[in-house]
Each structure stands twice: as C-alpha cells, then as structure tokens.
C-alpha cells in the first residue's frame, strides 16, 4: 500500500499550503507522476479521494501528469521526456477517462522499452533520468 502513504503525504502538504493561503475551497490539484515509479494512479486517486472527504478539497479535480524519463547516452545524445496531462473532470466528464491516459495496453512492456532502447546515434543502451517523481505541481484555490 505505498500509494496510501504517498497520498497521506500529498494531502498533508496540499492542506498546509491551502491553509497558508486562506483557501476556502481547493478546486484543482495537479500531480506529476513519474513513469518509472511503481505508483498505480488508480489506487493513488482512490486514496486521495478517501483522505479528502470532509475537507475543503472534497470536490477538487485531480489532474495527473505522466512524466516520462529523459533518455541520455554517453555519446551525448539526449531525448527530453514527454509530459502527458490527463483531462480534468470537467473536460472528460467520465471518471474513467481521467485514468485512461496512464494505462498503456501493456504497461510492463512500456516500462521495459525504456531500458532496451538503443541510442539512435551510437546504438549503446540509453540511460533513463527522471521519471521517478511524485510532484505536487500546483493547486487552484478559492479564497
């Protein structure tokens, strides 16, 4: 259950920032989730929702970003990792859609692909950097 302890940490931080800014309501929380972490976004969302019941964030939209690692090679080749955003609740309407973007048809091969990609310049194995974070990017509040 490492999603639960991470969700606790996120909520603790979000609430203290909201309080410091005299928030009456938290409208949106944007979180960046590294693709190389073992975080399951669906479990993370479930834990966050549960922990935020009866708080000023109970109706908040949680926007997730998938942060892909940067790929580097000792020859100097560098490929910047993509950041893909989920739709907000208002945009997506359906709750499922928020998660779909993070679910690849074959997650296991998705992760392995980062390891086995040879450098397009020199064909050595690429080294992944980043993609190991869980970042509270921003919160939208009403004061």
């Amino acid at each position, binding site marked *: 259950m490492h999603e639960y302890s*991470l969700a606790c940490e996120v909520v603790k931080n979000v609430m203290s920032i909201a309080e410091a800014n005299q928030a009456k309501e938290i409208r949106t929380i944007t979180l960046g989730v*590294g693709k190389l*972490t073992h975080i399951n976004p669906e479990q993370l969302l479930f834990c966050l929702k549960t922990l935020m019941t009866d708080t000023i964030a109970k109706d908040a939209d949680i926007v997730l970003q998938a942060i892909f690692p940067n790929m580097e090679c000792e020859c100097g080749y560098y490929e910047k990792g993509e950041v893909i955003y989920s739709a907000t609740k208002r945009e997506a309407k359906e709750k499922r859609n928020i998660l779909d973007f993070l679910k690849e048809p074959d997650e296991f091969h998705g*992760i392995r692909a980062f390891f086995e990609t040879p450098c397009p310049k020199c064909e050595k194995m690429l080294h992944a950097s980043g993609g190991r974070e869980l970042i509270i990017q921003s919160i*939208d*509040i009403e*004061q």
Partner: protein
Amino acid sequence: MLMHVINVGHDVLKANDMLAEKNKELLDKNGVFAINIMGAIGSGKTTLIEKAIEILGDHYRIAVIAGDVVADMDAARFAKLGITTIPVNTGRECHLDANLIENVLSSMNLRDIDILFMENVGNLICPTDYKLGEHLRIVIVSVTEGDDIVLKHPMIFRSADVAVIHKTDIAEAVYADCEKMERDVRQLNPNIPILLTSIRDTESIEQWCSKISSYI
C-alpha cells in the same frame, strides 16, 4: 471569491531521497557501511544475512535492521547470533523508507558498527522507489520464484548494485533455468555483478561473503 493558482513543485518522493542522503551522511561520519537487502518473501534474505554474519563476524562488527510487517521473528534469528538487531515493524507499509531508518539510526550506537544490513520487507516492487541511505543495494531472487521473475521486475534489477540468484541447488526440481535468469539480469543491467548461491554449496556462500567484503 478569488481564484488563485499556487505553483508548488514539491516532490514527495524526493523528500525521501533527501532524508536518505542525510542518513548516508550520518553513516559515513561514523564509518558504517550500509547494505539494503531486497528480495521477495522467502527468497533467502534472512538466511544469506545470517551466513554473512557467521563468516564475516570475526572481522567486522555487524548489526541488522530487520524490517517486516511484523518484524520480531527475523530479529530473533539475528539476535541468536549475538549481534545488535533492531526490528522495524513497518505496519501497513510494504517497504522500509528513509524516515523509518532515520528513527532507528538515532537509537543505535553507530560508532560500534562496521557493516549494517538493512533487510527490507519481502517485496520486489515498493522498495525500489525508496532509498534508505545505503551504500550498496543487493537484490536476492530465488529459483523457486520462477525463472521469469527477473523480467517481471525490471526496475529493481536496474537500481541494484549486486544481484543474487539463490537456492540454485533446487533449480531442477522447480524447473527453473539459472542461466536464463542470469541472462535476464544482464539484459536489464549489463554491468551488475551476479552471484549464484545455495546454502548447500559452501563455496558459493564464501563468494557471497567475499563479494560483500570487497565493497568495504
């Protein structure tokens, strides 16, 4: 009402990494070499640490932090060998983290320790995301987990410094191909040292111990 966007940029996992760095500094200051032992339930983590204590115990002062959801059993096994043992109950958590380790370190007499084993909770997934402040990360898999276990858990093999394929003596009985497991580890982490060990093969246990002491 006023709408307001607050940029935060706080990395929750980085907070653990920073705490881990602090732990490492404390260990360095006291001349302690810390080893994070990771592996699935029943892979042989406790047994291999016991063997290391038996063989290396004459040359080094060894202590163990035994992490488990309920930690007392393994700790009792280590305590029998007459070394400092601290059980860490992780409660609902499936891994040790830098915060738990920080609390334990503050209660230990680090000046009296040369090697500190941190036996992680039996799990090949969650421990990967959490640094503890260790100098060496060792992952142990046993042939009984099936010879496809390595490719199923790419991240932990990628992040480890040493890989151990254990219980090789019963590989045939469980239809596991040790060479395939070795190849899979190499594919994920080409330069990682790989040890094949079995409790019945004294030579392999000696290699395990000399591998550890080669880092110290």
